């Protein structure tokens, strides 16, 4: 594929934003439920940065479209299209981040609520909403099977009833099991017992943010992973890489913000970033190895239906540089592609990991963190470029020579 830079910026920006929000929420949880000192402006400023990144990503995506003025139409086909689902998931996440940022910026909207009071007021609403959404999920799940016309055994409403009943029973058994566990282990009871602990409304909004950011990760990853012709993408690695690289870069951003606004948080952020970057590096390397060993499913023989082992293309048809050549061919040499691979491995993983370890062993330095962030982001652009260039579209079989 010919890497579209609008999509390269879209996916790297929103991935970083999602990871950063996850990091901020982690910090908020840490402050809420441990004795960690408060991080001051970090959460509110951080949420603003996340929002700006999301806006930048959304803006970049418009450059990909032939008719950006019709972009709203892209939200209509969520039943079948992962792209459409992403188009819905992104604004949802943006709204949640906006609310989160507003709550964090203006304490007047974000009073401390003791947990039992909050629970009394909101658990009913949340409980009802949760119950309704659970039922919806179960109905959707049932409909997945019911909607397949050719499988007549499933063409009844029984699957839905089945799913609802079985889920209720399993849920009840799990709840009883949890209750027994709490009764047996007193220390667990202490952790779960939140009576009287003051929490912010933003914590609940943050939880919604975490849900929506993972939803967005899944949608973005699946846009690529669902295309079975692109064998390099049609793997769970695609999803794993989007999530891990987003988290690694997002936590890196959070570490930098922490080093600037709340130095006491950087140890937590930096350790998490280090772990995430190492894991992301391992998974990305594994996906590179997997793609290296791929055998193309389509050949010149299957493409034109001639079994002769020796076929040479002489012409790819009217006019040479077509949409097809431009869209699916990067036109770069193998050496260039291989260089990009090693460059991104060094910039996204090796250098940042070294720089993080150095700072963990000595002391956190804001300038050095900024440099690390920048290096990793440049590497991420190379990584995403490579991700596209690496995917070999079967249509290229038909466009091997210009005549």
């Amino acid at each position, binding site marked *: *594929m010919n890497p*579209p830079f609008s999509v390269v910026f879209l996916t790297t920006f929103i991935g970083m934003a999602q990871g950063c929000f996850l990091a901020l929420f982690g910090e908020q949880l840490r402050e809420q439920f441990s004795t960690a000192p408060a991080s001051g402006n970090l959460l509110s400023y951080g949420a603003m940065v996340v929002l700006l990144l999301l806006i930048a990503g959304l803006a970049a995506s418009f450059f*990909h*479209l*032939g*008719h*950006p003025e*019709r*972009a709203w*139409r*892209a*939200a*209509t*086909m969520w039943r*079948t*299209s*992962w*792209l*459409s689902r992403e*188009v819905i998931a992104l604004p949802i996440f943006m709204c949640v981040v906006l609310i989160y940022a507003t709550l964090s910026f203006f304490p007047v909207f974000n009073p401390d609520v003791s947990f039992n009071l909050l629970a009394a007021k909101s658990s009913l609403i949340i409980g009802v909403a949760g119950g309704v959404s659970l039922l919806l999920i179960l109905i959707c799940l049932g409909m997945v099977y019911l909607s397949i016309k050719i499988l007549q055994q499933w063409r009844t409403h029984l699957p839905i009833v089945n799913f609802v009943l079985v889920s209720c029973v399993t849920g009840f058994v799990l709840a009883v099991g949890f209750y027994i566990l709490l009764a047996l282990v007193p220390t667990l009871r202490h952790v779960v017992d939140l009576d009287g602990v003051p929490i912010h409304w933003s914590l609940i909004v943050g939880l919604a943010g975490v849900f929506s950011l993972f939803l967005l990760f899944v949608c973005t990853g699946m*846009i690529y992973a*669902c*295309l*079975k*012709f*692109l064998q390099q993408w049609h793997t769970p690695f695609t999803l794993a890489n989007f999530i891990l690289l987003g988290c690694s870069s997002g936590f890196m951003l959070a570490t930098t913000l922490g080093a600037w606004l709340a130095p006491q948080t950087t140890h937590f952020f930096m350790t998490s970033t280090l772990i995430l970057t190492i894991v992301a590096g391992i998974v990305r390397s594994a996906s590179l190895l997997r793609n290296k060993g791929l055998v193309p*499913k*389509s050949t*010149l023989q*299957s*493409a*034109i*239906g*001639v*079994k*002769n082992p*020796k*076929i*040479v*293309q*002489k*012409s*790819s*048809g*009217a*006019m*040479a*540089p*077509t*949409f*097809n050549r431009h*869209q*699916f061919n990067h036109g770069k040499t193998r050496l260039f592609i291989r260089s990009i691979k090693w460059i991104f491995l060094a910039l996204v993983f090796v250098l940042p990991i070294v720089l993080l370890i150095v700072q963990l062993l000595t002391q956190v330095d804001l300038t050095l963190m900024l440099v690390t962030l920048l290096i990793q982001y440049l590497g991420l652009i190379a990584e995403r470029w490579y991700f596209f260039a690496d995917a070999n*579209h*079967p*249509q*290229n079989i*038909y*466009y091997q020579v210009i*005549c």
Partner: protein
Amino acid sequence: MSKKQLALAIDLNVCVGCSACVTSCKQWNTSGSAGAMADQNPYDADPSGTFFNRVQTFEVGSFPNTEVVHFPKSCMHCENPPCVPVCPTGASYKRAEDGIVLVDYDKCIGCNYCSWACPWGARELDEFKKVMTKCTLCVDRIYDESLDERDRKPACVLSCPTGARIFGDIKDPASDIAQAIDSRNGYQLMPEWETNPANHYLPRDNKNFDQHANADKSKDEEQK
């Protein structure tokens, strides 16, 4: 699966690679109400443009036993079209009544995603209209009752001087196309992706030419 499935069958025995189908396709579809199929630098050194149909040329075998295969390729109008479900706007759709895969140019946002999902590269973004375009099987012609009945066929089929292109409903066993596919071992391209392309190709009859169907026959014989 639709009850009716219009499609083309292309006879590789008689295609001479003259590109009359390419130019007649361009002529008909550039003149319709959907607007022109844009070209860039058509008369300069670096010409480019939108085509719904292209004839590609392959050399098969080793010298002196080589044959040239001219290979027209347009949208396969798959019965299980992978380009349709990925469309975020619903602009790409498959008609229930006759199985033609079409793009609604007024809904298309030009995101290219459907072209990524087509293994044949049958979809081309028009650089001027900025929407995805593709073979329509001349949908604006085949149902036009102001034309003589014999002219209600895709432009490429009417223009082919050797009769290499057969048009019709592959689900109707009595149709010319269904009979040709059945009696002459018509095959689909890239069956490995399970999209069930509606367009078929009729293999060469030459016994020395290791063609799809012949290879399959020999496989069958081996099994016997």
